[in-house]
């Protein structure tokens, strides 16, 4: 079915008034294609901005002229190309496997943190006493740096995959709790009432109206939490790791391999952008007004 202003009804009411204000009938099709053009232009400008950043980087590197202080784009790219398939340090994994390992840790930590955060946030939203009880705990833990937890996590979970994943989820959890509560709070009470007066059960309204209405804002919280989980990957891979992008960056830094440090950072940026894009795509489908 297509929508267009041409389909607009010409119904005239009892009082001689046309039902629609002829000058106020929106042209939905034209508006949608206008929005699509705007989106395309936005993506183009974004690529341009990234390109400009690379150019500025190269200019600064040329002026400084020291590959250890500021590695040039060229040496970073060649380090990236070289180590993408060559293990670093020797006997370890190549960079693409490190990226995979780090992505796995981030996704596990992010997944666990998001799940628990949304669950805790929803319960806090629904039960006032629990909210008042848990809120200060969240507020106290929120500003703590992930690094501070490392000794404790090693004591509790040893040096395997578990402490690394737990460390990341510790960073994600409070972000998701706070954004879930804020998202649910922002759903108007009358939206719930509206669903109920249309004959829906309390449960149906909770899932299909309240949570559904909060979903776009929750996904926005997930985007922030996703960035936070990448910021703690380096800390996580300080825990007796011998693989992962954080580990490679730390190792390369210790041996003044600055182009490789930058290559590792660029890899984190690239994977981070990829994951953020998938969340933005989810947002695109969840919230029609963003299309």
């Amino acid at each position, binding site marked *: 079915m297509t929508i267009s202003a041409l389909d607009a009804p010409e119904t005239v009411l009892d*009082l001689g*008034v046309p039902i629609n204000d002829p000058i106020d009938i929106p042209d939905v099709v034209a508006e949608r294609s206008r929005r699509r053009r705007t989106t395309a232009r936005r993506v183009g400008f974004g690529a341009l901005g990234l390109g400009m950043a690379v150019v500025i980087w190269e200019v600064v590197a040329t002026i400084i002229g020291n590959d250890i202080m500021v590695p040039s784009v060229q040496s970073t790219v060649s380090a990236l190309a070289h180590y993408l398939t060559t293990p670093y340090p020797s006997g370890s994994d190549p960079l693409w496997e490190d990226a995979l390992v780090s992505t796995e840790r981030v996704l596990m930590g992010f997944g666990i943190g998001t799940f628990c955060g949304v669950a805790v946030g929803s319960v806090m939203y629904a039960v006032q006493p629990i909210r008042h009880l848990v809120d200060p705990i969240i507020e106290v833990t929120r500003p703590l740096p992930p690094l501070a937890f490392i000794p404790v996590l090693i004591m509790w979970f040893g040096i395997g995959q578990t402490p690394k994943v737990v460390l990341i989820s510790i960073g994600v959890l409070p972000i998701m709790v706070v954004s879930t509560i804020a998202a649910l709070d922002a759903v108007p009470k009358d939206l719930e009432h509206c669903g109920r*007066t249309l004959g829906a059960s309390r449960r149906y309204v909770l899932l299909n109206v309240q949570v559904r209405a909060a979903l776009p804002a929750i996904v926005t919280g997930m985007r922030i939490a996703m960035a936070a989980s990448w910021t703690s990957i380096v800390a996580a891979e300080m825990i007796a790791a011998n693989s992962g992008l954080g580990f490679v960056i730390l190792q390369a830094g210790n041996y003044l391999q600055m182009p490789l440090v930058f290559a590792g950072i660029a890899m984190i940026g690239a994977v981070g952008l990829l994951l953020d894009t998938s969340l933005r795509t989810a947002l695109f489908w969840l919230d029609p007004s963003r299309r």
Partner: protein
Amino acid sequence: MELHQTATAVAPSLRGLPLSPSWETGSPDAMPPATGLQRRIASDTGAPAVKVEGLTKTFGRRGRQVPVFNNINLSVQKGEFVCLLGPSGCGKSTLLSAIAGILPFDKGSVAIDGTTVTGPGADRGMLFQSPMLFSWLTVRDNVLFGPRARGLMKRARAEIGAQADEMLSTVGLHGFGDAYPHELSGGMRHRVAFARALLNNPAVLLMDEPFGALDAMTRSRMHAFLISLWEARRITIVFVTHDIEEAVLLGDRICVFGNRPNGIIKELEVPLGRPRRFEDLEEPAALVTKRSIRETLWAAA
């Protein structure tokens, strides 16, 4: 805009709609679908559409009980258009929410078509100050929310879908079924909310200052729309407003609220004919009614 034309021919789409979808009557397939009118007559016990008896509501505020209203009685006949008029904070919206079942009350009872109700239900449609559309659903899916939530879609998907499309035509939104709420104009969004509430075929439509946030021109258009809709379908309506002009233009009867907690301090019939026209407001009878209401409100303040 020609507002002075006398009502003669009603838009065919407004007249043509059956008053109730047949899936709610459970009629056998062999029979032609029974309309809601038939159902209403068959089950007509002579009970008013809405009967509120001895309703009392207090809000607790720091241990102190603040009464909103005491012992309110209200009876709305089938097909009647009643306006609840009063200053802000007088309890008129609270009463409406209590009838809708979304606000618990302390004492008294609410009966719809002779049946006492406690919680919210599809028998009482409600329209809010803003249209409260579900932004993630298309216009058509918004309208279908009621039947879908009530599990009726499994039984009569095609039939309900056709009813929804017809309802969209009724409210002047033919061709906009696949649009999203944010793509519509303000008046159109309100009409989607109408269509959504009406598809449930409620016994009464409760309206809480629904046009308060609209600009004056759109508001007149919505008044014309509501008058036509009422003429065509004779819906029972309880309409909350603080606008004397609006109450006189739309209502058959006006319940004037005093300040909290006095409740309804005056009830009066609107001495204007039907179908209502905009120029009826300039009749001496309308002017006398408006003055009487104004004097009542000012005396109470």
